[in-house]
């Protein structure tokens, strides 16, 4: 019987090693897999390349992973944040690398990675410094830049519901990058608040089919980043 459940966040991230590329779901705190990120801090691999829209906030979750110096490179669209100095400080000190990618190009590069499309053309960034060194081509009278797909060794995601096959639904705008990251990672690890029986999710409303998911771990009451930040929590404490 197919059963993708694992017993704990620690077990779920146990094979993430130094130098891995890790996609982390979430846009701000919506969809951020805090418990998986904290397990990754406990486990401790370094020299990670992390792909996320942002760089976390406060001193928990993704910001804590960066603060713990496990991340050598961030690929993201918006590394500045109102309530974290973790990334900016390391970046100004030259201690972390940044690949800045516009948000839509980031989503599409990840989707391409999952869909077996090695490269595509887009008009986004034409006329800006971000096209530097990239191939530009005129198609039907408009200029486009060639962008390459993004893949990862692991994806860490948060879902609303999951079944043993790995079928997923999400909560509102927590969906954001998760469906495309699930497709683009070799090993997709999902924390879910609600593990349900196979068949309990109507096939019409499955957002991420189980084929894209490798491991499911139940986290009943996931922490909220904003609450932890407001409380001044620092991980590891």
């Amino acid at each position, binding site marked *: 019987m197919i059963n993708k459940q694992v017993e704990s966040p620690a077990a779920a991230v146990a094979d993430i090693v130094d130098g891995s590329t890790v996609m982390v779901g979430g846009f701000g705190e919506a969809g951020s897999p805090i418990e998986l990120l904290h397990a990754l801090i406990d486990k401790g691999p370094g020299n990670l390349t992390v792909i996320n829209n942002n760089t976390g906030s406060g001193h928990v979750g993704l910001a804590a992973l960066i603060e713990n110096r496990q991340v050598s490179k961030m690929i993201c669209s918006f*590394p500045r944040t109102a309530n974290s100095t973790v990334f900016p400080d390391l970046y100004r000190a030259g201690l972390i690398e940044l690949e800045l990618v516009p948000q839509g190009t980031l989503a599409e590069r990840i989707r391409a990675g999952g869909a077996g499309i090695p490269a595509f053309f887009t008009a986004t960034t034409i006329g800006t410094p971000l096209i530097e060194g990239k191939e530009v081509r005129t198609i039907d009278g408009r200029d486009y830049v060639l962008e390459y797909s993004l893949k990862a060794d692991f994806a860490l995601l948060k879902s609303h519901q999951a079944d043993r096959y790995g079928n997923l639904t999400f909560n*509102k705008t927590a969906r954001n990058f998760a469906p495309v990251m699930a497709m683009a990672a070799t090993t997709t690890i999902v924390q879910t608040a609600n593990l349900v029986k196979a068949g309990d999710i109507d096939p019409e409303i499955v957002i991420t089919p189980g084929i894209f998911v490798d491991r499911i771990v139940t986290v009943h009451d996931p922490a909220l980043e904003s609450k932890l930040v407001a409380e001044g929590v620092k991980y590891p404490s």
Partner: protein
Amino acid sequence: MNDIITGWNREQMAQRAAVDIPDGCYVNLGIGIPEKVAKYVPEGREVIYHTENGLLGMGSTPEPDKQDPELINAGKKPVSAIPGAAYFHHADSFAMIRGHHIDICVLGAMQVAENGDLANWSTGAADAIPAVGGAMDLVAGVKTIYVITQHNTRDGSAKLLKKCDFPLTGQAVVSRVYTDLAVINITRQGFEVIELAPDIEFDYVQQRTDAKLINKT
């Protein structure tokens, strides 16, 4: 230039822009003054708001006890979903943007050039943390780009220029600029002032602009 005259305030700028949002439009509003446009769309018009993090049919800010930290807008603030809304993932959301399905995007700006070039993501300063978000996707993909901005920076320099100094967000993308002083169309001829804020003279606006303005008021 010491003689400061008050034009439209932030609310009035948003209100003025809202007049130009037609009925039935799909609209994306940037962070800051652009967000305020939604509350001023004239009665009788139905406008659908897109937020690029994955919601079409964004509604107003809910009461604190009705907020869900996972129902937020692109500025990461709590919002609601109207009856008839839809959630989707980021690749689908930016397909809407890149594929020219959004009718109007209203954005803030650091600088706008007379040919419609927009700079709103970086001052280009060496120690700045570059951050672009969805701005480059929006200006490349949305059919009509409006800018709402103060006419001048806090230190009085012009934001409407012959040519932008800052790194661009997009080339020749802005159609119209709403400032505290005027409403200005961007045309092949350059900046055309189509409306002035109450008690603002054309020459006063021209003095505060680093490009030639055409008076079409």
